[in-house]
């Protein structure tokens, strides 16, 4: 009998498998597709590869600003080349996970798992069914894109994010339904490649979870690239036959025809088909219920990653997978959800950690906000990337840093500093004397901290 079986080879699953194996467990991992899950195959990695291509193209077009003259009329995007770069990266990364499985003596089974009892699974691979027994299980089945209730994905016109990254050619027009993280990232990718992009978002702003001023900076930049943005708008009808969508904006009905309609309205946990009901595992549409150790109501069965709902980010899944595996091995560890960075790979990038300004005001009343604009940052100016700012939120009684938001170049790298500040529960007086290298984009974070204490030097 296996000590532990992990269902799903995505970020939560493969990390859980490796962690448990390193603790001495005999581990089997079951994956129905390729190792790496959504992150590697249909999410983080391929989209970032497309973004890198789009941004390189954008940068080359602006070479003149850096004193480099090019025959710009000859600079074109080779879509096949872009796809090849993406596929190559994904392939290498998937192979890397396979290598890690071997290195840690983890048996990998291909197939679709479903519980028969709380110690036995049926694994279906094509027409073959194999039963697998184990003392413990970790469910890391991930999530899948949510579809419109009235118009399911057809893969031809109505597509999801996984399909949007492997289109046969750069579309000339693209409707994006949903202005959240995924929608904005695709808007950024395709608008830089010349696609006419339209975003329809139900909320009042793009990226509803972020501060309005941070989201507004992105909106302005997307609009400069020709993206049409309709917030507070609702989709009323999809007509696949003539590729036309109808949506209402400010009581006015709009009609839009596009090559594709990307539906990015969120992701739903994959809770069906796992036989959860057979074992009596508590779950809902929002995901599988777990405690702080990622343990379900059935003590020998754990769940982690997107399948438990909550924050559906790969790095949260990594950590939840670790916590689940360690607890299954008798170790105690919790996930610190307070310091989870949120990264949006648009152009400019957005990254934040902790509370937004509104959340902080709701929680603490009066707060202190420090800001510093990249327009006053030398390194950003040199790179022609001076759009954006750093915003730090400070609790007033003890000067605790409770939130950091960055919109601008390399925000997703810079946010690591904020994550450390929140994870380390640091206060501004601890941070005031730290030395930021000069010239760097990091200086903007230091200046924002100083600004929150009324001591900004460069603003």
């Amino acid at each position: 009998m296996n000590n532990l079986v992990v269902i799903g080879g995505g970020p939560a699953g493969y990390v859980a498998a490796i962690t448990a194996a390193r603790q001495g467990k005999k581990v089997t991992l079951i994956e129905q597709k390729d190792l790496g899950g959504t992150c590697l195959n249909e999410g983080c990695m391929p989209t970032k590869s497309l973004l890198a291509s789009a941004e390189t193209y954008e940068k080359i077009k602006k070479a003149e600003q850096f004193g480099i003259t090019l025959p710009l009329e000859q600079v074109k995007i080779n879509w096949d080349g872009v796809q090849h770069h993406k596929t190559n990266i994904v392939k290498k990364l998937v192979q890397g996970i396979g290598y890690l499985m071997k290195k840690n003596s983890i048996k990998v089974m291909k197939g679709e798992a479903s519980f028969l009892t709380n110690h036995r699974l049926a694994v279906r691979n094509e027409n073959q069914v194999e039963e697998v027994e184990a003392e413990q299980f970790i469910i890391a089945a991930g999530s899948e894109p949510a579809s419109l209730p009235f118009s399911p994905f057809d893969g031809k016109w109505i597509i999801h994010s996984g399909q949007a990254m492997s289109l046969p050619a750069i579309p000339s027009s693209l409707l994006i339904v949903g202005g959240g993280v995924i929608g904005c990232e695709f808007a950024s990718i395709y608008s830089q490649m010349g696609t006419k992009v339209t975003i329809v978002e139900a909320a009042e702003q793009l990226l509803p979870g972020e501060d309005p001023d941070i989201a507004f900076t992105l909106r302005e930049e997307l609009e400069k690239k020709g993206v049409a943005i309709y917030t507070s708008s609702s989709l009323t009808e999809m007509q696949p036959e003539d590729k036309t969508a109808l949506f209402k904006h400010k009581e006015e009905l709009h009609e839009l025809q596009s090559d594709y309609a990307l539906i990015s309205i969120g992701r739903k946990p994959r809770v069906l088909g796992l036989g959860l009901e057979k074992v009596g595992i508590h779950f809902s549409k929002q995901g599988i219920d777990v405690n702080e150790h990622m343990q379900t109501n059935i003590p020998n069965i754990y769940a982690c990653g997107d399948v438990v709902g909550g924050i559906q980010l790969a790095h949260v899944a990594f950590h939840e997978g670790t916590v689940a595996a360690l607890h299954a091995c008798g170790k105690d560890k919790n996930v610190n959800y307070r310091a989870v960075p949120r990264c949006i790979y648009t152009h400019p990038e957005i990254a934040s950690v902790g509370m937004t300004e509104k959340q902080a005001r709701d929680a603490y009343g009066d707060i202190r906000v420090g800001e510093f604009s990249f327009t006053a940052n030398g390194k950003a100016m040199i790179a022609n990337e001076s759009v954006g700012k750093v915003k730090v939120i400070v609790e007033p009684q003890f000067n605790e840093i409770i939130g950091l938001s960055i919109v601008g170049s390399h925000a997703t790298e810079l946010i690591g500093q904020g994550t450390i500040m929140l994870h380390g529960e640091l206060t501004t007086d601890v941070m005031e004397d730290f030395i930021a290298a000069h010239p760097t984009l990091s200086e903007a974070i230091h200046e924002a901290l100083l600004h929150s204490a009324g001591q900004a030097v460069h603003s």
Partner: protein
Amino acid sequence: MAAEVVMPKLGMAMKEGTVSTWNKKVGDSVSKGDMIASINSEKIEMEIEAPQDGVILDILVQEDVGVPPGTIICYVGKPNEQLTEQNSSANELQAPKNEVAAAVSLEEPPANAAPSKKRKETVLISPIARKIAESENLNVETIKGTGPKGRITKADVEKVLAERASEASPPSVERDNLAINKETLPVAGMRKVIAGRMHNSLLNSAQLTINMKADVTDLLSLQREIKDVIQQRHKVKISLTDFIARAVVLSLQEHKQMNSAYIDNEIHLYNHVHLGMAVALENGLVVPVIQHAEKMSLVELAAELKTRAANARQGQLSADRMQGSTFTITNLGAYGVEYFTPVLNPPETGILGVGATEDVPMYQGDELQKRNLLPLSLTFDHRVLDGAPAANFLGTIKQYLEQPILLLL
């Protein structure tokens, strides 16, 4: 890697602790959380838990030997694990271990005290957790950290505060009634000063109160005998309090350690006696100070006390007349209080509480007599002196009060 188990610091004033019992011996298997030893320091006793699964690799401190906080008392590691070079060097500082017991004395801490102490004093705690703990006057050394390597997090501090709040909360029915009937008074002015000083007094010293009764039958007789003469000659109405003040002043001169102040980890002994005398006012309390009371006769002291008390009640005490006391007397006898626990007037080492005299039947030899007993409560700072010298001091006061003729000399 082997884990060091160190003598914990169980309080700010703890200078050393003793392993009273080893529950395990070298080679015994332990699981994380197992009780491996009982330790004590002065009046605090606690159990030491194994920090991790493993075996006891080495025991460095024998039972009943006092060592400073931070001293490594044993190692827990894997079976047959060799202690690292660093571990070994720590051992060498104490080695040979069997000789440690003989070498250690209360006055002379072992050679490894300094580095170990330094390590122990570095409590792993996040900056915000430390700030919140300080603002709530929580001793961070008593908080169990749940972060990496036991680091104390904000959540850990908040948990302790929540537990403290729930312990302090009255039953819900009472709380509801309080909510309906409550009246809020601002804490301002004199109340604010008193609140702050008394709270800080209890937080920043080690207060202990001892009680004793003095037979003041003869003293009260003497007072009756001489009060009219003194009234006529010196225009002073001499009271029991004046005799007590005189007894205290004389006793303080004999017990210098009680006439002192604990300031910045130093004990300041005074040759002069600046006597504080608590005076109740309508809205609070002030402590006028009789400077150089040791130079005054009983009558001079009585006159000065009357003047100061009158000034206090009339609000005519200048600030310099309320500062610099070296010892204070507080009297609740007029309110019928017998014994109480006076709170030190910082930075003084002692305060004497005086209760109400009581008529009791007492044998004097074989004869039963009616006697007047005066309850005395002495609160002192245990950082400065211990119970026995404090009791001697209180005993001296009692002697003076029971042989009142000495107070007139």
